[in-house]
C-alpha cells in the first residue's frame, strides 16, 4: 500500500516488476529482486537508486550500505493481521507453514524489539513509523506527516486515495 501511495504521490520507485499484482496484492508488489541479495554484498544497484523509493523488509534493513543516507518509512501493522495475510499468501503460493504460529508471532515481536532500537540509532537513517491500520482510517493527516518527513512535493490527494477498504482483507477478526 505505501509503495503505491508513494508512486501515486510522484516518487520514482525502483522495481523490477518480477512479481506482478495478484489477489494478495492487487496494487502490485513494487519489489526489487536484488534487495534480497544485499546480504551477499550485492549493492551495485544502489548507484541508480538515489532519490528513489525501494521496498525493503525490516529483516534486510541492516544490509543497507552504510555509505548512503536513508529516509525510512517503517510500516507497522497488527502482528496477527500480518500472520493471517502471510498464511493466505502461502496458500496461494502452494507453500505450507510447518512452524507454530504462536512461535512465529513471538519471533516477529522479538525481531521488532531488536530492529527498532537499532534503527533509531543509525546516524545515516531517519525513520518515520506509520501504522498501516491507522492509514486505513486516517489517511489525510498521515499523508501530511509523510510529506513533511520526505520534504518532497508530493500529490497528497492521489496518495490518500490509495488506502482502500477493499485491501483490508486480513483483519484478525476474520481469521
Amino acid at each position, binding site marked *: 500500500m505505501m509503495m503505491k501511495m508513494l508512486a501515486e504521490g510522484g516518487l520514482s520507485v525502483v522495481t523490477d516488476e518480477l512479481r506482478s499484482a495478484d489477489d494478495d496484492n492487487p496494487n502490485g508488489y513494487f519489489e526489487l529482486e536484488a534487495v534480497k541479495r544485499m546480504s551477499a554484498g550485492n549493492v551495485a544497484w544502489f548507484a541508480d537508486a538515489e532519490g528513489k523509493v525501494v521496498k525493503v*523488509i525490516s529483516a534486510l534493513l541492516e544490509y543497507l550500505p552504510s555509505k548512503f543516507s536513508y529516509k525510512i518509512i517503517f510500516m507497522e501493522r497488527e502482528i496477527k493481521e500480518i500472520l493471517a495475510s502471510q498464511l493466505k499468501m502461502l496458500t496461494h503460493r502452494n507453500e505450507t507453514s510447518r512452524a507454530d504460529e504462536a512461535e512465529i508471532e513471538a519471533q516477529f515481536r522479538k525481531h521488532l524489539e531488536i530492529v527498532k532500537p537499532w534503527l533509531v540509532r543509525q546516524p545515516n537513517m531517519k525513520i518515520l513509523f506509520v501504522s498501516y491500520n491507522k492509514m486505513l482510517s486516517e489517511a489525510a493527516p498521515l499523508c501530511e506527516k509523510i510529506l513533511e518527513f520526505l520534504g518532497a512535493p508530493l500529490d497528497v490527494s492521489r496518495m490518500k486515495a490509495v488506502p482502500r477498504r477493499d485491501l483490508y482483507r486480513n483483519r484478525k477478526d476474520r481469521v
Partner: protein
Amino acid sequence: MKTLILGFDSFDPAVFEQMAGQNLLPNLEKFIEHGGYSRLEVCSPPQTEVSWTSIATGTDPGGHGIFDFVHRDPVTYAPFVSILPTKKGIAGEQFVPPYTAKTFFEEAAALGYPATALWWPAMFPARSELPVMTLPGLGTPDIRGQLGVGALFTSENETKPKTIVVKMEGAAKNRFTASLPGPQTAGRDGPRTISLPIAVDVLDDRSVRLTVDKTQIRLSLGEWSEIIELKFRAGMLFNIHAITRFIATSLSGAVRIYALPLQIHPAHSTWHYSSSGSFAKNLWNEVGPYLTLGWPQDTTGLEEGCITDNQFLDLCEKIFERRIQILFHLMKNFHEGVLASIFDDLDRVQHMFFHNRMDVVQDWYKRLDRFVGDVSARVDEWSGKYRYLILSDHGFSDFRNKIHLNRWLLENNYISMKNGGSDLTGVDWNRTKAYAVGLNSVYLNITGREGQGIVQANQIEGILSELNEKLSGWKDSHGSSIVQKIRLKHETYSGPYTRFGPDLVVGYASGYRGSAETGLGKIPATVIEQNTDHWGADHCMDADVVPGVIFANRDLRDFGALSFRDIPFLAIGKHLDQSHLKPPSQATGEGQKDLEERLKGLGYL
C-alpha cells in the same frame, strides 16, 4: 608498488619529541627535516588490537567489529576475549578470524602485488584463502588455546595468582623431578592434561642440567635457554608440538626453574598459525627458531616475581633481535609489494617501566632508533619509487589509579544487585540500566538486545546524555578530571558492526584506566583503587590522551591532520572500499529460524 612499514607498538609522540629535542634519536629525527613526521590520530578506544586493525582496514571499529579486548554476549552478559573468537563446527570448537574487513594487505594482493604482514595483531587464525603472507601477532594463543601463562617449577611450597606452579619432588641429592603440564585432550573421562617428565640436576650454585622428556639442556643461573622444542603424545599417531624457553632463577636454597607459556610450534601447528604454512616453517628453518605467542614478552612472569626486571628485558631483547633477523631476511628478496612488521617490545617495556624507570624506556627508544638506522641504510639503496612508513598504534600514559566502573554505576543507581555479589552474575537486570564490560565500554541494558533488557528505545538518548554528563564531570579528590571524553557509539563509529559496539566509550584522562576487573564485568568494593602493580602505565585512556606517530619518506604536511583512516592510502595509494562487508544477522540464531523460513517461503528473502 613497493612499501615497507615498521609498526612500533606504543611509540609515544611526547617521549619522541622530548628525546628528539636532545638529539637522542638521530635516525628518526631525519624524517622531521623533510616534513616526514606527524602525530597520528588513533581510533577509539586506543587498544592495541583495535587500533592496528583500524590502521590495516582504514575503518573504525564499526567497520571491523573489534571494539575492546573484551566483548560481551548481549543475551547472557558473559564477557569473552574479542580477538580469539571460536565457532562450533564439524571438527568441534575452532578458532575463527576475529574480523573480515578488507586490509590494505589484501588490496595490494588483489592488485597483483605480494603482501606480507608480520606480527600484526588479530591475524590469528591465518586466513589461508587470502593471498597474504602472515605471521600473527597479538591474539595468537598458546598450545592450550589460551592467551598464555608460564609455569614455575619450585622446590618450595608457594602459589602465584596466574602462573602455573609445580612443586618439584626431591629425587636424590641435588636432583628434583616434576611434570610439565601441556595441552589438554579429550579423554574417556573428560579432558586430560598431557604432561612431560622433567628432571632438574643442580650442578653447582650457578648451573643446572634440565631434562625434559628426552631433551637435555644446561641452564646457567639467570640466563634464558635457547628455544626448546617439545613433543606431547596425544595419541598413538598424534603428537602436539610446542616450544618454550626455560630459565633457572634460583639455585641457592630454593630451586626454581621457570618456563615461558608453551607456544605453537610454527612448523607443526595443528591450527592455522600462518599463511602460508610453509612461510612460517621456512622462516624457522632459514632464520632460526622464534616465539609465536601473541604476547611473548612475559609480563605476567615479571609481575608475579617469577623473573626479574633484567631477565624480562633480556627476553624482550631476544625477541626483538630474532624479529629483526626475520625482517632483514625477507627484505633481501623484497622487490615489490607491501612488507610490514610490528615490533611490540616497547609496549611491554613501557607497561612495566614507564611510571618509574624512564631510563629503561628511553633506552628502548634509542634501541628502536638504531634499528631504524639499520633499516634506512638498506632502504637508501633501493632505486625507483617506494614508500617507507614507521607508525604506532597509540602513545602511552601514566596509570596511577584503577577505575572500577561497575561500582561507580552501582553507586549512581545504574546497576542494582539482587543480593550483593561482586560481578555481573549478581546483578538484578530488571532494575539495571547500564553496565561495563571491557576496559572502555559501557552498554545500556536495552530491551530486545540484552537478554533481560529494560531500557526502551525512547529512553536511550536520555540515559546516554545523563551518563555523559555525570562521567564527564567526574573529578578526583584533587579536582582533576577522571574522564577526558565520553564518546557515544553513533557519533564515533560507522559501518555495519556499529550496532554491536558499546553504547558509550569511556575515554579516561591521563593517570586513570578501567580496571582489569571492570574488563571482566566484576564489581569490586571501591570505585577508585590506587595502582601499585608493576604494570604501572598504559594506553587504554581516551584516544586524544595517547596519540600515535607516523614517519614517512614523504612530506606529510600536505595532509593536514593524519589519522588511522589515512594509512591504507599512505601504504598503497588508495582508500579501501569496505562496501562488500556482510554484517552478522540481526537474527538470534536458532530462535529466529522459523521466522527466516517463513520469510523465505513468502519470497521476501
